[in-house]
């Protein structure tokens, strides 16, 4: 009888441990799901916010472009010939007549002479490293970037 009680007790303790383990595992899983959901919701909310901001910026850009177009048309109106003529007359200008113009002939002036442009000595640019878009190339690029880091730190 005593032995039977002990066995039953041992079995109950074992079940309790198992239940605790199952409970803990379930709790962990639940927490993981909650954390995952929170991360997902947070990321989705961030996406939505960024999308909205982007939408606002695009709308703002479009509005500014339209405003620029309007300003361009306004400038074109202000530069119309009748307005410019009227303004020039207000400022005291008048139309030139043929007798107001003196043409000066410059001896031996050849407008179509060959022009010699000054030579420009460009600095020798360091050629960019080739990147062959393979895994080895990518690893090489990372190594090169890593090797350049100490130099940059020294420069600072």
């Amino acid at each position, binding site marked *: 009888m005593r032995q039977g009680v002990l066995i039953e007790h041992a079995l109950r303790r074992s079940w309790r441990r198992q239940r605790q383990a199952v409970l803990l595992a379930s709790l962990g899983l639940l927490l993981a799901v909650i954390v995952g959901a929170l991360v997902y919701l947070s990321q*989705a909310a961030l*996406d*939505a916010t*960024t*999308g*909205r901001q*982007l*939408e606002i910026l*695009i709308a703002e850009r479009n509005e500014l*472009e*339209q*405003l620029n*177009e*309007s300003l*361009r*048309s*306004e400038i*074109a*109106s202000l*530069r*119309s*010939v*009748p307005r410019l003529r009227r303004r020039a007359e207000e400022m005291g200008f008048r*139309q*030139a*007549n*043929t007798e107001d*113009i003196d*043409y000066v*002939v*410059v*001896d*031996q*002036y*050849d*407008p*179509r002479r060959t022009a010699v442009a000054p030579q420009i000595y460009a600095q020798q640019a360091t050629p960019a490293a080739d990147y062959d878009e393979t895994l080895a190339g990518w690893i090489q690029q990372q190594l090169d970037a890593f090797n350049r880091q100490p130099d940059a730190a020294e420069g600072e």
Partner: protein
Amino acid sequence: MRQNLPDDTLRQRLPIVIAGLLLVSVLLMLRLVSFQFQLDPAVTGYLESVRASGYQRTLRQAAVRGNIYDRDLQAMAVNSLEYRVGISPNLISQPRETAIRLAGIMGLDELDTFNRITSEVPWVLLSAGVSADQGRQVAELDLLGVTIEARPRRYYPQGSMAAQVVGFVGGDLQGYYGVEGFYDVQLAGREQEQMLSNIPFDVPEDHDEDRGSDIVLTIDREIQYLAESELESSVALTNAARGNILVMDPRSGEMLAMASWPTFDPNAWYEVRDDTLLQNAAINGLFEPGSLMQVLTLAVALERGAYRMEDTYLDRGYIEAGGVQVQNWDRKAHGVVDLTTVLVETLNVGAATISMQMGPAAFYSGLREFGIGEPTGIDLQGELPGILFVPGDEDYNDSLLLTNSFGQGVAVTPLQILTAFSAIANDGLMMQPHVFRRLLDGDEVRASSPSTLGRPISAATARQVTEMMVTATREGMGGRAGLPGYTVAGTAGTAQVPTTLGYEAGTSIVSFIGFLPADDPRVIVFIRLDHPNEYWGAAAAAPVFQRLAQRLVIMMNIPPDDVRRDLVAAGGAVEAIQH
């Protein structure tokens, strides 16, 4: 026992029902799973459209239309915005103040605005054509119940200037007439399709702006303004009904100005009642060229070898053929006359004698080579070919050989006759007239290159005809077309106005074509006035050319002949002082 019977039946039938339900569920699940795999494309398309209709919509947007510029990149047609301002009367708490403020900004009648604001309608339009500046001011008021809707609009900052060259854009955003019509495809660009999503997580698509190409014209707006001002004042001065002035560079065929009167404002094209005003009279306004045609007759005769410069004929004052008698304008006989005198005195009998001598085959083939009776092919919408009946045509008769030689019984457009004369100015080479100079498509620039329409006469013949035209200008028009310091080659035309019963008495269509400097032409000008109070072209049209040429030589930096020769002698070139 009786009570156990339903339990037994239930026990027996329940598995069948469960199995049936399970089977249906499995079938439904299999069907659902099957949607994830290949389906009939029609079904896939339908399902996608059902899905998209709930979450997405497609917005079709016209691309931003390209601008039009003159040769110096001054805007002739641009895009702008106008606003449509409306109001919801129920939402307005202070109608009186709102009416005063809105009417003040938009230039509306205060009482009318107040009446609209207090009307018993859910929404009322206050103004449809509010400018961008006014629209901004209304938006800044931030009034509840006021709606502002921006709408794209084509705007022509130069107003009516070159309206018939530029054309206009209609309410359907399509270009009509002129450059807007001819280059509509290039200016309009491609229609854009934008997918708009209702799902907030979808990042909106940002398209690079797709816009039509910009077009740079050969038109010089300052020369255009000069031509239009001169035409308007000449029409007023001579009491003419209509008129045209065309200015062209004969060496390239570039049109520098195409002025027509009357014209219209492309910003208000919808107010035009007479549709002919929308069309370019320079390319579809047919007229009988009158004495202008004598020059072409002489050129063809010299080119074909039917006559030489020193040849003469006996002018009896009339000539008969095909049942008609042709007389000189003064109804006099001029005796022995040389070819230059035919032009100086504009003798119809002389021109008719020459065409008779040549014969119809040589005469008409020569005119065809000058492009008479055929469209020039200018890059503007709505060009007409003119009318020239040749042997073999149903409407041809023998008398036309005589009358066509001095510009009767033949109809041309201003551009057609100008193009024909440009061949004389350009050593016999006839250039393709055009208004397109460059196309700007993003970073790409496509420039036009001059092309030829042919060589109707040789350089030697062109120089001979030019010489005769110089003499005609110097001696034939009483100095009305000359310009001190410059050699001008020109000729005037006077044509009767044809009606269905013959010709209208006492009125005419006068014209003048001239180019300068005669030995190295930089510019060729055509002038036409319909029904002026002066009957003769030399009296009505030649002075217009003179006034115009005085301004043109300054604007185009064309030095007087002596300066030009000194310049060339000194090893320079005229081009050195041109912009």
